[in-house]
């Protein structure tokens, strides 16, 4: 300390303010560096490895002309008492690009089917004996938007269906990290974690030549209690062809045709605010 003080004292007095300015500039520089994206990221806070894996998965799915997959979905729900519980359902999904889809959603409470044939979306509620059909655009992306934004029909696992999941995610993600290797139900996977304004989401991608998602978790961090959605994906099938009849809806005998309601003005206002 004495030596340091002596060295400082040897500096001419007029250099001392300069020393203070240099110290300030150095610290400012450090602060600016801290604000920059970390090394190894793509400029918006996604690590290169996470970015590359997500792109590979997206390309693999979007370039597959057809596929089938089964999912077990776990979803947080709030009971009338306020207690949070997990609800579950299974989803059997069949997709044929560019404009065919079939989904079966089953639980002990509900049993529904969704058919999309490139012109219409039909939904059948087997437990309540009702079905409805609405006109739909001629490609999967527009159908996903139309079904939800006009009629409130959420197509399950739509992030696997859209034509470019990577581009969609990239628009919204603020950070992304490769958490590392792990297994999902015994299948070796790479675990990636991404963050957006209102949600955090994670994806577990199968190792090897077929980079399909094996698990997806979405955490809604802006909602009370940060409810979570989990999908475990299995039985990926890119080989079995999906003929036309798979996507053709035939109402079962006794089912009542009912109106599919368009979303009310309140929902439309919310959507238009989102688009602004």
């Amino acid at each position, binding site marked *: 300390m004495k030596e340091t003080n002596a060295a400082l004292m040897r500096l001419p007095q007029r250099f001392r303010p300069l020393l203070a300015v240099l110290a300030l500039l150095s610290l400012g520089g450090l602060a600016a560096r801290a604000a920059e994206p970390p090394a190894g990221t793509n400029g918006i806070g996604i690590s290169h490895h996470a970015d590359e894996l997500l792109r590979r998965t997206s390309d693999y799915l979007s370039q597959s002309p057809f596929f089938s997959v089964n999912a077990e979905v776990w979803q947080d729900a709030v009971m009338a008492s306020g207690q949070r519980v997990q609800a579950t359902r299974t989803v059997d999904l069949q997709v044929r690009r560019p404009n065919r889809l079939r989904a079966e959603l089953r*639980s002990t409470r509900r049993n529904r089917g969704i058919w999309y044939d490139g012109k219409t979306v039909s939904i059948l*509620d087997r437990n*309540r004996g009702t079905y409805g059909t609405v006109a739909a655009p001629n490609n999967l992306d527009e159908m996903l938007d139309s079904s939800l934004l006009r009629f409130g029909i*959420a197509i399950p696992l739509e992030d696997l269906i859209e034509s470019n999941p990577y581009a969609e995610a990239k628009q919204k993600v603020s950070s992304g990290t490769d958490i590392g290797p792990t297994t999902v139900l015994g299948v070796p996977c790479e675990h990636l974690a991404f963050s957006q304004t209102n949600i955090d989401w994670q994806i577990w991608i199968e190792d090897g030549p077929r980079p399909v998602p094996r698990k997806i978790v979405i955490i809604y961090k802006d909602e009370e209690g940060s409810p979570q959605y989990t999908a475990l994906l299995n039985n990926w099938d890119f080989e079995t062809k999906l003929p036309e009849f798979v996507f053709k809806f035939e109402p079962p005998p006794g089912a009542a045709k009912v109106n599919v309601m368009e979303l009310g003005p309140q929902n439309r206002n919310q959507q238009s605010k989102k688009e602004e």
Partner: protein
Amino acid sequence: MTRTCFKMWRSTGIALLTVLFSMTFLHPLGAQRHEEQRGEPNRGAGAPRGRAEGQRQYVERPYHGSVRHSDFGVVRREHEDVHRNYDVDVNHGWGRFWGGFVTGAIVGALPYGYQSVNVGGVPYYYADGTYYQQAPSGGYEVINPPAGATIPQSPPGSIPVVVGNQVYYYMDGTFYVQQGNGYVIVPAPLGVTVPELPSAATQVVVNGNVYYQFNGVYYQPIIQNGVTMYMTTAPQ
């Protein structure tokens, strides 16, 4: 010597404080980045998260399970007990309390914990969502819920249904609204959508269309938000 050293360290200290001050308060991007790194969402001006100043608000979206549409339908609601997450395979604990009462049934004694209710000078009795009237032949007869009856709490298992600024508490074909410290039965409003039919509703077909009818009210099945719901209506 000591005094000069003090001045030197003071200059450096001031410089450090200046830098810290500017990093903390004059660098909004840095502050925002710091907030995001903590996992806090960027709320934007006037957009409360979960709680608003002075009044609590609850953030909710109708659907979970999509990154593509994660921003869709986000609502900020005032009522904790109103949930609009339609497409969830869970019973919410509503029907658990719906006794499925049978109008006209006679019981020998009122259930434990019953309450006396007076409507226009006529005495009724209430317990767990079911109303009774003294039967001429003795005992108590189960009756349809009488309009105007007021009970101190919303019935257990009732479903909050919001129409405009009015919250109805719907239970097994009966609509209540809060008035003062009580909940009063009101006539079923038309155009209201409920997730469950009254347990005693019967199917009727009017002009080829399927309806369900209970206590003079018709319920039309519709598909709303991808699930079957029932809208109170006048058949055409």
